[in-house]
């Protein structure tokens, strides 16, 4: 499982980097805000509500960071908090939140500073993720987007390593097919004009 340049560090790497036992809230926030936000989205939280989920997650992190054990995976720990915040919101909000979401105004465009091509590519990726079932989506997100190791994913999702690999293989295959369809679409486009 390859790691990208801005891959989140494992807890051990993180501790080594900051040369102390536990990372500070600022460091965790700066490195993992995007990850937490995307995990919330992968659980089906709308983009506009993902900011609120991220805030609740980091408030929990703020209260509980002193209980984090450096021997554990930091991204896996954050995944667990995010999952539980999302589940608690789902249970607690029920009718009220569903009704509120029914009148949610159209979302303002996110990151307007990003180029059109970049936003379009991100939208394609979101479309692909939305089309995956949740099991494969989570493994794919954590592995190929967030850069967690297979054992960290197994810890976060509480599944065997073999299952991590099989789900990842299946998700990558689907992404390849999705990319081919996009390429075919973009090749057809000039003739359509």
């Amino acid at each position, binding site marked *: 499982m390859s790691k*990208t340049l*801005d891959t989140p560090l494992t807890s051990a790497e993180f501790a080594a980097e900051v040369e102390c036992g536990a990372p500070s*809230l*600022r460091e965790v*926030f700066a490195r993992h*805000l*995007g990850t937490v*936000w*995307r995990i919330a*989205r992968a659980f089906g939280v709308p983009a506009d509500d*993902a*900011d609120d989920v*991220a*805030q*609740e997650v*980091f*408030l929990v992190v*703020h*209260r*509980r960071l002193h*209980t984090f054990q450096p021997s554990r995976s930091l991204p896996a720990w954050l995944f*667990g*908090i995010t*999952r*539980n915040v999302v*589940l*608690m919101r*789902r249970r*607690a*909000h*029920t*009718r*009220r939140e569903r*009704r*509120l979401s*029914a*009148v*949610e*105004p159209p979302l303002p465009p*996110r*990151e307007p*500073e*990003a180029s059109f*091509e*970049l*936003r*379009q*590519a*991100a939208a*394609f*990726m*979101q479309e*692909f*993720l939305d089309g995956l079932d949740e099991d494969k989506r989570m493994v794919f997100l954590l592995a190929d*987007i967030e850069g967690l190791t297979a054992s960290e994913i197994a810890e976060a999702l509480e599944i065997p390593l073999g299952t991590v690999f099989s789900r990842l293989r299946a998700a990558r295959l689907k*992404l*390849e097919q999705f*990319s081919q369809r*996009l390429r075919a679409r*973009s090749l057809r486009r000039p003739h359509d004009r």
Partner: protein
Amino acid sequence: MTDEPTSRALIAAYKACARPSAAAEAELWATLAAAERADARDPGRRSPSRAPWLALAAGLLLLAAWQLDLARIFASGHVLQDMRDLAAYDAAEPDPLEARPREESAGAVRWLETVKREAETRASPGRQRAAAGHGRGSPARASRAAADEPGLAEGGDGAPGADAREGLAGDGDRVLAEMALLQEARAALRGGQPETALALLDRHAESFAGGSMTEERQALRVLALCAAGEVARGADEAAAFLRAHPRSTYAARVAAACPEGHVQKDTSEDR
């Protein structure tokens, strides 16, 4: 990039765009930093969980009871059961760190389906046609239309004439009008206009004094007060909100809204 979209390019674009906006990130950090500062001033705010202490106390009591040969008395009475119940209650408290995912209960799903069916039955034929024609977006449009309707947005009680005119009478429409007004306030707050949000919330309080979304209004009001810089009032109202709704889903956000005001909140994570 889109001419030759590769998997890697898609992932890179997604990582770049799928995250909070720079403004939202700054706002999130400001909240956390304020919470950190408040904690630094008042370290006692982080109260440890009661569960380990209860377990320890129960263990010591049992040990003492065994040593004094009182176990028989405890076991035959209600004391031991009470202790077990207390420990079970404490363990059952939701904890974002320890809770495990659980499927939505079948009962909840059935309840939601029933609510949906009831709503569809109550809806007028015209609205049903609109819903069929516009899909998921139509309730939003309907509610915004309701908010634009003066009789509903301002009066809430809805003059009989207005009800007959638009076919928007009934509890469901009152709720929609309530939601639309709250949604406006929420949008104003998110748009950096807390004063506008407060005015809209005042209007909501007048129009829907006994409405079904008082809790949402009060929570939004705390957030708006804090955002408007009225920290003392915000903290007072936050404390009142947390006393009235200690298990509210908005409790964490309300407690964090005015950290400068020292809102005391024992959130569910700490119980």
